[in-house]
């Protein structure tokens, strides 16, 4: 049962091949049995899940239908879930039981989804290896000595290990697409503002976006359908109607113009990955796509700009964690400053502290223009590059990551080494564009992802291209050994 995709589960529940309660029970025991190997869950909400499953079965018995009704899901542990610990992978929130549901959580529960638990993540979504979690590193099911990517590494590992069919993730600089690539999943970062950020604990507000992680594009379409939509509680949410993401999955790719940015194939890219990307391009050409080389000249400036903007916003977003109203509070503070400094010094891990300090510095008097304003100017240059490119092509294609999953602990010495792994994904966040990563082969037994980018609100196009590709390839169907 654990091999089923979300689409297959929907059909199975619809034709009563199994009940949601049976499915939920089976997956929960699989999680309990296998998760200790990969550490992908922070909390397993067994009792609540079984209750939701029974409720979903009852709704179906009452004649309700829906692709998500009774289907299992897990949420990255930065989506607030009422009555359930919402930790952000941090000691700071180890004791935090959210008093409300995130909009995404509420919408999916409303649609009848069954929440099996909360998945592990880099602390406050800061990282690309899932090694900075207070709850320990997540291991890549494809090779337990390797990282699964991050920051949505728990969601990625859980879905890759067939513990469940889909999970939510969030993507600030690649945190859905990069772990999807490193674990052989399909992951989609929607257009900024497409999915509500209410209840999604912020890392960098102008870059964060929630999205689906699944094994197929078809499943991503189903899950995105339940997540997307306008939310009056989020000022940055976009009030635009949500199309039917499954409707055009099979549309023809005849004449589709694919742009290959030459900057994506330069130094730093593992040549074996370059080859796999080219192979995927050949497949798409066979489906009728036309390929064109393009240029995104400011791409190289994206990482420096990102590592100003994201830490700056984070330094302010994380100021609310002060040991007063929720979260970790140090023992016996001797005065107010001591309360702040020790609660935050002891509650936050090293990477979070580093980024808070970088952001604090970038915003401080005398440095604001040189850092923050400069980074926002570069942000516009990057957006302009994309706008120009999309005059010539319909989608942009390239590698999702320069390297396959690296060994646990191998990039811990220098934080900058890990930052450089975000080189291909960060630009979409800076420009707010939708991006998708899909499986495209293996290097040394480790998965490789191809990234597709599209103009604003064209998630449907990305899903269409990925789905057609997945009809003629089988990379996405491969499962890691032992799972």
């Amino acid at each position, binding site marked *: 049962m654990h091999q089923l995709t979300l689409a297959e589960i929907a059909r199975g529940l619809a034709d009563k091949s199994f009940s949601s309660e049976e499915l939920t029970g089976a997956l929960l025991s699989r999680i309990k049995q296998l998760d200790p190997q990969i550490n992908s869950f922070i909390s397993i909400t067994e009792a609540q899940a079984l209750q939701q499953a029974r409720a979903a079965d009852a709704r179906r018995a009452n004649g309700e239908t829906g692709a998500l009704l009774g289907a299992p899901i897990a949420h990255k542990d930065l989506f607030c879930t009422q009555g359930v610990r919402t930790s952000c992978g941090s000691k700071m929130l180890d004791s935090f039981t959210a008093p409300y549901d995130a909009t995404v959580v509420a919408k999916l529960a409303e649609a009848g989804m069954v929440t099996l638990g909360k998945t592990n993540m880099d602390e406050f979504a800061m990282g690309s290896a899932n090694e900075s979690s207070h709850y320990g590193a997540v291991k890549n099911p494809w090779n337990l000595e390797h990282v699964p990517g991050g920051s949505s590494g728990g969601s990625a590992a859980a879905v890759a290990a067939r513990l469940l069919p889909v999970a939510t993730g969030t993507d600030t600089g690649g945190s859905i697409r990069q772990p999807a690539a490193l674990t052989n999943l399909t992951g989609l970062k929607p257009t900024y503002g497409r999915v509500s950020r209410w209840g999604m604990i912020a890392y960098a507000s102008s870059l964060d976006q929630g999205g689906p992680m699944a094994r197929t594009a078809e499943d991503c379409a189903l899950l995105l359908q339940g997540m997307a939509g306008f939310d009056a509680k989020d*000022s940055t949410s976009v009030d635009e109607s949500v199309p039917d993401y499954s409707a055009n999955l099979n549309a023809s790719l005849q004449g589709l113009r694919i742009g290959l940015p030459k900057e994506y194939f330069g130094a730093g890219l593992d040549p074996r990955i370059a080859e796999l990307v080219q192979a995927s391009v050949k497949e798409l050409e066979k489906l009728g796509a036309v390929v064109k080389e393009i240029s995104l000249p400011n791409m190289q400036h994206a990482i420096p700009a990102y590592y100003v903007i994201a830490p700056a916003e984070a330094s302010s977003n994380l100021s609310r964690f002060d040991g007063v109203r929720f979260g970790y509070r140090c023992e016996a503070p001797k005065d107010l400053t001591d309360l702040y400094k020790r609660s935050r010094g002891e509650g936050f891990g090293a990477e979070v*502290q580093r980024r808070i300090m970088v952001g604090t510095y970038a915003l401080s008097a005398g440095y604001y223009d040189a850092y923050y304003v400069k980074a926002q100017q570069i942000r516009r240059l990057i957006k302009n590059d994309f706008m120009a490119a999309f005059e010539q092509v319909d989608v942009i294609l390239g590698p999702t990551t320069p390297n396959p999953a690296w060994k646990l602990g191998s990039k811990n010495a220098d934080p900058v080494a890990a930052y450089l792994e975000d080189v291909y994904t960060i630009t979409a966040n800076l420009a707010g564009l939708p991006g998708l990563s899909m499986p495209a082969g293996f290097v040394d037994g480790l998965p490789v992802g191809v990234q597709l980018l599209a103009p604003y609100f064209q998630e449907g196009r990305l899903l269409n291209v990925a789905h057609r590709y997945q009809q003629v390839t089988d990379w996405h169907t491969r499962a890691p050994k032992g799972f």
Partner: protein
Amino acid sequence: MALQRCDVEKIAHLARLGLNEGELPRITDALNSILGLVDQMQAVDTTGIEPLAHPLEATQRLRPDQVTESNQRDRYQAVAPSTENGLYLVPKVIE
């Protein structure tokens, strides 16, 4: 211009992060390494470029002036480290 230990102490104070004395050299190195990466921006000519704060450049929606919240104090204070008589408690503040 590399950060010195005293700069890092000042930043940590602004951010109210209590750092271990022993970790300061390592943290200073890490921050300098990150700022080295960030400083590559300075090579880009951005004269006359309007900063971009939000990708979609939308404008703020306004909410009608209506009271929609009710008292949930007990529920919200259930996650608080220290409260008394409905107040959040902090060490004595001297003004």
